[in-house]
């Protein structure tokens, strides 16, 4: 795919996303909004798993931290939604450092186990603490407003999530192609060599983990006000796995791939709804076939990068005399 086609394709997708609420019914708009949540969560996890190569099996925990922070601050203390965002981001980054600092020194496999445990701890805490509303969760979370305009309809939240998703995609793709993003790639490729080249691996991994945590928690904040009720069930291990699935299915480290993966993970089971109880079986079989025939993902990072580079460096030919 040439750089111009890629650019055009992206513009077309954005146009389709903007027009969707005007042609879709509420049911599919709700599915699309959920898909956008997954796009954001997928990009956050993509930094951790795709860029830095750290396996995180408890990513939904950060989603929960954001949702509960907003839920509690708004219902108990009457805070404005927008003020809960920085608090949630700080809390998530704090949790990220607390979990990461002792474990990121270890190899990736240990991190996977610790993050799995962390995800469960957060969920079980939410079930048992009274401030998080125990098993029934928090309800009656107020709607946010901006300049006197309250977000209330499906459409409002869809557009809010679309804007957030675009901002997150832009930020993550710029990070990926910066000095920081390259440092993550070096660590993913060969930790010891990266360290020998002057890259502090523990610090850089911690950075990846914390930025991923912040993105996850911000998605959680919006999730809380969109649903207006949250319960521990939304932050289960399966949730973590579905987000990871979006990343792996789309293509580790590929921005476009992860966005595509997120949409598919949400949309496919819905489309298969007519197949009744067979739908998850079909979905599962499709995934297995995918992993056999296209393990690098639907839209692998290499292809995406090649297209971006051709776009960026029209002079790329000069260094290759052939």
């Amino acid at each position, binding site marked *: 795919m040439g750089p111009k086609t890629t650019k055009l394709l992206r513009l077309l997708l954005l146009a389709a996303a903007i027009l969707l609420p005007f042609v879709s019914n509420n049911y599919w708009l709700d599915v699309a909004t959920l898909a956008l949540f997954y796009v954001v969560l997928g990009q956050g996890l993509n930094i951790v798993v795709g860029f830095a190569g750290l396996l995180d099996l408890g990513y939904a925990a950060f989603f929960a931290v954001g949702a509960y922070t907003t839920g509690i601050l708004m219902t108990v203390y009457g805070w404005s939604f927008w003020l809960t965002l920085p608090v949630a981001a700080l809390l998530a980054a704090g949790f990220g450092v607390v979990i990461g600092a002792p474990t990121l020194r270890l190899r990736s496999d240990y991190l996977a186990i610790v993050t799995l445990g962390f995800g469960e701890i957060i969920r079980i805490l939410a079930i048992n603490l009274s401030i998080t509303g125990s098993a029934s969760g928090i309800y009656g979370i107020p709607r946010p407003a901006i300049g006197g305009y309250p977000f209330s309809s499906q459409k409002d939240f869809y557009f809010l999530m679309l804007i957030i998703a675009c901002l997150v995609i832009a930020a993550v793709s710029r*990070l990926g192609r910066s*000095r920081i993003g390259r440092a993550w790639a*070096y660590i993913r490729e060969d930790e*010891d*060599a990266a*360290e*020998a*080249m002057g890259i*502090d691996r523990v610090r850089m991994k911690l950075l990846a983990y914390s930025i991923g945590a912040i993105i996850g928690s911000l998605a959680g904040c919006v999730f809380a006000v969109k649903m207006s009720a949250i319960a521990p069930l939304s932050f289960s291990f399966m949730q973590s796995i579905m987000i990871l699935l979006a990343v792996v299915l789309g293509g580790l480290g590929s921005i476009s791939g992860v966005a595509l993966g997120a949409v598919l993970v949400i949309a496919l089971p819905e489309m298969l709804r007519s197949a009744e109880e067979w739908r998850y079986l079909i979905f599962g079989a499709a995934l297995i076939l995918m992993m056999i025939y296209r393990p690098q993902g639907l839209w692998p990072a290499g292809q995406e990068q090649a297209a971006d580079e051709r776009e960026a460096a029209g002079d790329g030919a000069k260094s290759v005399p052939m």
Partner: protein
Amino acid sequence: MAILSVQNLTLRFGGVVAVSNLSFAVEAGTIASVIGPNGAGKTSVFNMITGFYQPSEGRIRLGDDDLVGRKPSEITRLGLARTFQNLRLFPNLSVLDNVKSGMHSRTRQGVWGAIFRTGRQRQEERLITETAEACIRFVGIEEYAGRAAKALPYGAQRKLEIARALATQPKVLLLDEPAAGLNYEEKEQLIRLIGEIRDSLGITVLIIEHDMGLIKRISDKVTVLDYGRKIAEGKPDEVLRDPRVIEAYLGREEA
């Protein structure tokens, strides 16, 4: 003046003494070598100098800085770069991206600059690219710049590792068996390249090597290790005539 010095360096793994009470110094602007039979402890010495192993005893100094107890990344920042005995490139990344890694510790741009593409960030990116390209040209692999590291011929991969180390702008460059697996022509190129690193970049070089021919031609000073101890030291011709060195390599002659 010694730019790199090792004093009473000892490394024990449990009961095994890999390096024993080793001292040597490398003068600034020279090419020094450490040689010795397999298992003599050469790579262990390298790993201690670069912070990958912690010595059981002893001191290591680079200029005025004490290196013992520091992380490898910190040591690189202080001006010491290395290559690995069995090539440790970033295999799936392009040659250019591989070499850019060396500039990490020489630049500062963080998350903020990356997300907002600030003027300073773009300026730094240009500097990183220019430096990396200069290093690639210096070792002579510019024809491969856009290719993935793993797709390069072996000899070019060796040169790429040197280019990557040079991009850290070191005071001292440590080469761990740089000639291993190279053919005659590539070895000649390597000898020229190492000479240029000293003469035109002014970087001090410390080499571990098996290839005696190479050592003889480019070293200003040779340190010989056997069973983790220093058994000889001096100019290459003298050292290689030393009976203890010959014995270490060829075994004792039975009378």
